[in-house]
């Protein structure tokens, strides 16, 4: 008797870095779990089971986005768990990690539990809470990290703002030094809070206060020294500056347990996009120089950057279309992240791309998935590698309709999203 979570995915090129697999295979799913990965495409052991024809697709371990803002609770006009998780499914993600800067923020065990329960009702994509490092994300008093971990927080971060107190950050890391949950650092020195874009030639021209690369790299160095002092696993969110990459390389060479992520917009866009006071291109950290874009792409190639993240930050068009200094920062990213990241990194192997979207993220967050090995949850992402499509934000599932990629044509297209054996997109 077949269940709702029984299904055969037939005819795809299956790529799983954890098994060194890249071949035409059938993925057999029973009870939401991978039961077999077979090369006998024609036959099925059970003719009553639904067969999904995946010819022409790549099937890989489900993609996990470690950095999204789902806005619920508090800013449901920008995004809800339902719209955000639908966007994730459409974008090829089987799981997301939700950043804590909601209103109220996710800074105690109750908030973690509420988010998990609400997300389970709102959508099929898995949603992992990230707990705040400090109460109210205020950078001062340490939040209840251990109770949040027990309630299901997969990581800790004051994302959106840098934990301003070194003392609080250091003590927070020591508090949970025995737990596996990593810290995720948004690196931007708080004294540059008034900056509106990257400090460089374009900001000079526009007469706009700038945020120097130094403001990111200095905090990255500070935080990775905390990692060294406490032995914690540390992850640098949305790295934007080549100086920060140098800091990350230094830390890794010293044996500090450090990783870094890149976003599609930092891999694609520079400060040049801000000319003419293009307020909708404002984002934190800011789009930097062409050299930084190149350095970030190189850092993926040389393995300094091992994680991709969308930093999905939906806002209403009204919030983005304001005078330059007042426009909300960030982009709707879930539905373009896969395509735009592949587009930026043409020479990177498919194996590495899948590791960075899936395997490495699962390892970082300590969550299931990241593999198609027998016995794993059947979280699967299907892609077409060459099925060009044009970004049209009016078709987004997300409520956020502002993207730096409007009108761009990309070759890679998410084709199938499977969570626990269920086709969710």
């Amino acid at each position, binding site marked *: 008797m077949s269940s709702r979570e029984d299904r055969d995915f037939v005819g795809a090129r299956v790529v799983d870095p954890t098994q060194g697999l890249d071949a035409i295979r059938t993925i057999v799913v029973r009870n939401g779990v991978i039961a077999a990965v077979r090369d006998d495409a024609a036959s099925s052991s059970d003719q009553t089971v639904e067969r999904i024809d995946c010819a022409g697709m790549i099937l890989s371990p489900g993609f996990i986005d470690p950095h999204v803002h789902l806005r619920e609770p508090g800013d449901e006009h920008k995004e809800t768990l339902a719209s955000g998780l639908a966007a994730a499914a459409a974008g090829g993600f089987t799981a997301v990690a939700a950043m804590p800067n909601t209103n109220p923020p996710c800074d105690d065990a109750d908030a973690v539990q509420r988010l998990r329960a609400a997300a389970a009702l709102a959508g099929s994509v898995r949603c992992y809470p990230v707990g705040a490092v400090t109460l109210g994300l205020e950078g001062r008093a340490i939040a209840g990290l251990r109770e949040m971990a027990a309630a299901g927080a997969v990581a800790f971060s004051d994302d959106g703002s840098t934990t301003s107190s070194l003392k609080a950050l250091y003590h927070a890391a020591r508090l949970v030094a025995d737990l596996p949950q990593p810290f995720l650092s948004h690196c931007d020195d708080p004294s540059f809070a*008034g900056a509106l874009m990257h400090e460089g030639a374009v900001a*000079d021209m526009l007469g706009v206060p700038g945020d120097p690369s130094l403001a990111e790299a200095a905090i990255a160095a500070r935080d990775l020294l905390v990692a060294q002092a406490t032995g914690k696993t540390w992850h640098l969110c949305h790295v934007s500056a080549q100086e920060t990459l140098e800091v990350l390389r230094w830390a890794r060479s010293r044996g500090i347990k450090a990783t870094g992520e890149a976003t599609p917009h930092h891999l694609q866009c520079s400060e040049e996009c801000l000319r003419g006071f293009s307020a909708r291109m404002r984002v934190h950290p800011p789009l930097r120089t062409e050299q930084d874009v190149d350095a970030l792409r190189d850092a993926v190639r040389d393995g300094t950057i091992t994680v991709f993240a969308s930093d999905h930050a939906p806002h209403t068009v009204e919030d983005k279309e304001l005078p330059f200094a007042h426009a909300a920062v960030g982009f709707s990213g879930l539905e373009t992240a896969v395509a735009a990241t592949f587009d930026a990194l043409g020479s990177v192997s498919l194996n590495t791309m899948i590791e960075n979207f899936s395997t490495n993220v699962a390892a970082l967050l300590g969550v299931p998935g990241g593999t198609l090995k027998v016995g794993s949850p059947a979280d699967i992402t299907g892609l077409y590698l060459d099925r060009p499509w044009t970004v049209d934000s009016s078709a987004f599932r997300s409520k956020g309709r502002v993207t730096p990629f409007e009108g761009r044509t990309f070759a890679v297209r998410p084709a199938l999203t499977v969570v626990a054996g269920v086709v969710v997109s």
Partner: protein
Amino acid sequence: MTKARHLLDLDDATRADLERLVARALDHKRGVADAGQLLHGRMILGMFFEASTRTALSFAVAATRLGAHWLDFSAGSSSLAKGESVEDTMRTVRAIGVDAIVVRHAESGFPYEFARHFDGSVINAGDGRHAHPTQGLLDAMTLVEEFKTLDGRHLVIAGDVAHSRVARSSARAAWLLGAKVTLCGPPLLLPADDPGWGFASLATDLDSVLPTADALMLLRIQKERGDGTELPPFADLSASFGLDERRMAALAPHAIVMHPGPVNRGVEIASQLVSHERRRIERQVENGVFARMAVLESCLTEIR
């Protein structure tokens, strides 16, 4: 920006644009027949979100001399202050019959937002640190009056360059007309890249560049800007980049001194030198009216 309906900055301006506007400004100074008919009956709205005496007055006189109506807008009690969107405010202003908006705002880029939504003409009267294009034009006009052609001439702009919209616009205008421009200040207050803004030389020692200057422009120190982490105290700048008797004597005999005003006496210019014969400060103010007449005429003839 040839014959554009907006004047937001000089970033896309060509030498021909500048020459045309300066020539027209000089025409107006000499007197144009029936100037009062050129914009007869047109409505020009001044929206000064930041305090201004000379620029607002100068625009008002320029508009009046061209036959237009100058309307003063009280920014503090506006619908914008009540939370109305820029787009809706712009539609309303246009529907009421305003042809052009002259806008000043403390934030860089604010006039761009008006221009995105306003069907008429938007003229920037100074936005944050970004641009003050009519000041650039009046300074170019003053230099052309003095030297005929700016080819081969050397303009030194000294002081707090980084926070100055005047520096950005006046430097570009002079450079477009052929002058060599040197920006002089402490490294913190200069553009990070050399050449600055893509065209200007940078110097940190005023005394070394003074002897080759044909014109020295001193910038007002923007004490109202920043939180103390972006600017040194007055005295620190005044000693290194202010004009005193010794520096006045180091200038070439024909060199002139300019300042966009208002002057912080004893800071950018020693008090006793404010009325020195080299100064062109009142000439700049006087020329401002004619430069703005040229701009209003040019922009407003591009819209119905």
